[in-house]
């Protein structure tokens, strides 16, 4: 048991942090938000050339701590709100391809992902909120050489920038997902305008045809690889939120140490100091929980999906609390566009909702039918038997 980063991991963190500090000042975030795609392309190109876009997709059994490394990267991205589609495209899209598609398509796509030449936009939602693999309108029917997909996918981020959409759809064998060319005939994008400047689109698919080899998990599959990719995205996004929460906490603490009222720094008032102390404790907790989820994922533990849900639930709630607290500690300034906090406050909500908010993910732990996973007792017992880990 050692809950701190090893030397290599600390080094990795320093490298990522240095990159973010240099490449992503506030102005870059604002330019991206105003619709300037060139900042994203530029960042994406640099990340590709550093080899960061291939993390988790190497298939190298030896590199056991890939998900942990992804989280280290995501935490640093989250601190500066780096405007790139890393989690949806690489962590979710890339992993779905990695686990779900067969050669030669698989290698071709993974190579271009790693080279930064391709972006995948997951299109999973049909209603206002994330609902796992459930498809209500979108369906895929078998044709001669493949499938045709019809339906409406909602709130697809980066859809206009993507080369492929990863579309979940109901098939004769249950829910599955398909890698669909973004330029396919019959695919229409409707841009939406959200508070965090997210590039969100509704995507209408009408008789969009895809080749048979673009179905995840082969002719009868899809669920497994998609679920596994979503779980990874939850963990990576949790790390991103932990990074964001650390950043807003640090900004609040710095302000509380400087701002003077009633002849004292406001940080000396318990009404300010104690909520910040609670927040610091929960940020530490969320970070540890996220890395534990990542560590279990890297080891293929049976409890990894439960931990992914737990981490996402906890980090989502925490990020909301932290941005809200930080705005509050800044007083009136916290409401002003000149203050950095507004960026985090506006953008945190989409992160909270992505792949399900706290309530949704908690409902996976214990649900009306016993939850989506084995009972925690069984799970722990299994893990215990397997690894001797703590109960």
């Amino acid at each position: 048991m050692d809950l701190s980063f090893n030397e290599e991991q600390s080094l990795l963190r320093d490298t990522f942090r240095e990159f973010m500090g240099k490449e992503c000042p506030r102005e870059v975030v604002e330019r991206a938000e105003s619709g300037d795609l060139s900042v994203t392309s530029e960042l994406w190109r640099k990340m590709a050339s550093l080899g960061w876009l291939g993390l988790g997709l190497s298939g190298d059994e030896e590199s056991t701590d890939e998900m942990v490394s992804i989280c280290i990267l995501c935490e640093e991205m989250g601190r500066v709100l780096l405007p790139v589609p890393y989690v949806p495209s690489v962590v979710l899209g890339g992993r779905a391809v990695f686990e779900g598609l067969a050669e030669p398509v698989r290698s071709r796509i993974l190579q271009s992902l790693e080279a930064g030449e391709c972006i995948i936009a997951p299109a999973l939602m049909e209603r206002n909120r994330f609902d796992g693999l459930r498809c209500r309108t979108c369906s895929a029917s078998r044709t001669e050489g493949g499938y045709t997909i019809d339906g409406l996918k909602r709130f697809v981020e980066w859809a206009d920038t993507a080369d492929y959409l990863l579309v979940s759809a109901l098939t004769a064998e249950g829910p599955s997902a398909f890698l669909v060319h973004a330029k396919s005939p019959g695919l229409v994008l409707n841009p939406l305008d959200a508070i965090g400047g997210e590039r969100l689109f509704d995507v209408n698919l009408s008789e969009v045809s895809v080749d048979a080899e673009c179905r995840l998990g082969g002719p009868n599959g899809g669920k497994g690889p998609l679920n596994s990719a979503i779980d990874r995205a939850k963990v990576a996004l949790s790390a991103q939120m932990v990074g964001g929460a650390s950043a807003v906490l640090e900004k609040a603490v710095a302000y509380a140490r400087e701002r003077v009222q009633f002849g004292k720094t406001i940080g000396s008032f318990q009404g300010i100091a104690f909520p910040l102390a609670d927040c610091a404790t929960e940020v530490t907790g969320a970070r540890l929980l996220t890395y534990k989820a990542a560590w279990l994922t890297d080891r293929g533990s049976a409890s990894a999906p439960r931990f992914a849900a737990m981490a996402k639930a906890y980090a989502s709630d925490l990020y909301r609390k932290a941005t809200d607290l930080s705005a509050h500690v800044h007083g009136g300034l916290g409401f002003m566009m000149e203050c950095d906090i507004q960026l985090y406050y506006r953008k945190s909500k989409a992160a909270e909702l992505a792949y399900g908010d706290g309530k949704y993910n908690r409902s996976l732990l214990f649900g009306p039918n016993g939850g989506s996973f084995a009972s925690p007792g069984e799970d722990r017992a299994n893990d215990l038997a397997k690894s001797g880990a703590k109960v």
Partner: protein
Amino acid sequence: MDFELDERQKELRREFEEFCLDEDNRRILAELADEGDYYNAHSWELFKKMAERGWISLNWPVEYGGRGYTPEEMTVFHETMAYHRMPIIALILSSLVGNVVAYFGSDALKAEILPRASAGELLFCLLYTEPDAGSDLAALTTRAEEDGDYYVVNGTKIYTSLGHLANYGLLAARTNPEAPKRQGISLFLLPLDSEGVTVSPIYTMGDGRVNEEVFTDVRVHRDYMIGEKDSGWFVLTMALGLERGSIAGVAAQGRAFLDGLIDLLRETGMTSDPVVCQSLAEMETVLEVSDLLNWNLTTLLGKGDVPITEAAMAKLYSSESMRRMGSEALNMLGFAGLLRRGSPGALLEGLSEYQYQMAPMISIGAGSTEIMQGIIARTGLGLAAKG
């Protein structure tokens, strides 16, 4: 990063677990539980068995009969004991007082205390709190006046855990009333059978008791002083840190409680209620975080750091989560949750009401929630008054 126990720790865990699950030991535990006062539950028989295994002195220095256990190994020990509801306060106090004596005690005191303590023949208590000195411990007024080779102690201590069973108490008393308040305090290991000591009960919720000790001209030889005269605050700060570290491990009691609760709710079909499910999921998550914060502290202790902030975080978070859980569980269980052990219809052998009744203590003892928040704010975040 590594979230798994290593081979030796796993082996130890199995050894500790085996003891806890031993039939004869379960019988002793059940008898103790029937006596009602779980908080003060103590069995010399169990204690001696643990002593035979060297468990009273696990983390004392080796030259004093300890086994030099690492912080990681101690956490495994405390967690396993707490999970299986072994009486744990006496263990925590022995590990703490043993270390304090080994590092700061006189040779005479070491010889008197350590062999008997590690043999499981002695119990200790902490004599810190006074009617007018709680969180502000440095305001204590119990006096110890020098008189030749002796000190003469006068004053009153309250809320002492195990005070009625203990042989010795780690006493904080003022030896120099002229000095600034943190610089005039000394520590003694006071034999509680000394003349002039009266111990009386203060009853608590959860059928427990703590104690009040009144000292009237109690004479204690200077060999019983711990560390230098007037330098008690330093030792005290260290001892409080040690105590907080082990308290967080006690959160494993919460884990055991939640496991029992989940099983019970499943059996009774209550887990079809989405509101119950949300609560359970929240408790599960919060306990996991609490456990991780405790291991985070343990990791840093193991590296030889002095993690003041992380200790406060672990204590703050685990006690606040246990506090919430006690009440939440009763909302799920309804009236049946209020039934005491032994009552018809009691659930979880009465643990549900116990968890609820103990909640107000958890966020106060060993440094209250607000004191922890203050430590994190000042030490961790640098939010001291300025300007």
